[in-house]
């Protein structure tokens, strides 16, 4: 009794702000929504074997998480949604899911960093958060390859660069330019996902307001 309330890592600097029951329910629901899309859309896309599937799934997932942020406008909510989705994926869906789990955690964490730029959700903060989040898809392959290949990863990259430049007849610096272009593509896709999330959030609120008009509901 009289013990100082524990400060929660997610809410550092937020004083006594906590997630309410409503906030946690929304976080759980949006985590389930992200997880359902990973299962449904992700499986379908993998069957089609299209390129940039990871980028597209990252964009879709972070779009859902950002819409969730418009309903739970507290710092840490997007990362919380990511944690719920990652744990849901790990325990309910089976198989090798470590890769997508790591990706979901980093994407939601980076989106949270992007949202720190603004105290409240704003039209420009969503594209920034989306761009940062989807950019992880570029770095993710190096991260997982580094774990699998260990310290020899640099040797592998050197070989790939040598063979690629020899095969295409271009200077090795062209490989660096190509990598930067791939990063820029992901940043653009992420920003587009953030903008789409903003418009989707507005549309969802509009539809809910018209559905709940006249019905007693807590604000």
């Amino acid at each position, binding site marked *: 009794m009289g013990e100082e309330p524990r*400060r*929660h890592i997610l809410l550092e600097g937020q004083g006594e702000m*906590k*997630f309410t029951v409503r906030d946690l329910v929304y976080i759980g*629901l949006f985590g*389930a929504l992200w997880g359902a899309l990973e299962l449904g859309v992700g499986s379908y896309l993998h069957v089609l074997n299209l390129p940039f599937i990871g980028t597209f799934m990252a964009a879709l997932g972070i779009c859902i998480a950002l819409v969730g942020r418009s309903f739970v406008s507290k710092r840490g909510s997007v990362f919380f949604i990511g944690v719920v989705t990652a744990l849901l994926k790990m325990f309910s869906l089976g198989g090798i899911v470590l890769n997508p789990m790591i990706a979901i955690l980093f994407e939601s964490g980076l989106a949270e960093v992007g949202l720190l730029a603004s105290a409240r959700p704003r039209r420009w903060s969503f594209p920034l958060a989306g761009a940062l989040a989807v950019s992880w898809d570029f770095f993710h392959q190096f991260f997982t390859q580094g774990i699998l290949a*260990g310290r020899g990863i640099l040797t592998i990259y050197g070989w790939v660069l040598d063979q690629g430049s020899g095969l295409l007849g271009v200077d090795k610096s062209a490989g660096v330019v190509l990598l930067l272009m791939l990063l820029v593509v992901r940043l653009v896709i992420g920003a587009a996902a953030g903008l789409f999330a903003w418009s989707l959030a507005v549309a969802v609120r509009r539809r809910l307001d018209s559905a709940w008009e006249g019905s007693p509901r807590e604000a």
Partner: protein
Amino acid sequence: MVAFAGTLALAALAPEWRALEVLALAALLAIALSPEALGRALRDRSWPFLALLAIGLGGLIGERDLAMGPLSLSAGGLAMGAQMLLRALSILLAVHTLTTTLSLSRVAGAFERVGFKGLGFALGVAVNALPIVQRNFQDVTTALRLRGGFRRRPLRAARLLLLTTTVNSVKHAEEIVAAAEARGFRVDQNPPLPLAWQKGDLALMLFLLLSGGLILGR
């Protein structure tokens, strides 16, 4: 969780053929903590694909100094591919050991103790809502497909799909909130699940530290 984190760290840090020792350690931990994990890992459909990918890619990059019939491969690349395969198998085994020994509630409890207050409740909502959300998603997809939405204007249909699924999910969320509030549920009333700390856990941590030191330090 300690065993999983330790195996992951060793898999990333172990140089060259020490990855074989990491795999042996992962197998030993799987047998000691959950023999079921070994069976699951062997039945996992991923490892033959991993084997083909690692060895195949490894054989195609690097200096081609190994002649195998009509094929000209890289000995260094093959060796590196095999080492990658050993690391991937160690991680696969560690993941199966983790998922067979740890329950979702214990993981949530561990997260709640480091500041993720209410994660257990949010996870519970997510687990219960997932089948409802999936069914809703499928129903809306079917409705849009029957109306020819995906044929004529696929992007608009996709937006409508996301919009409708999200709206339905939010409505479901409000029902859950109403039910929780009607029962007087409050997050701060529920302490996080206690961490089950046993004598064997300390021995396991020491064993991992010793093994890690032997694998990396030699």
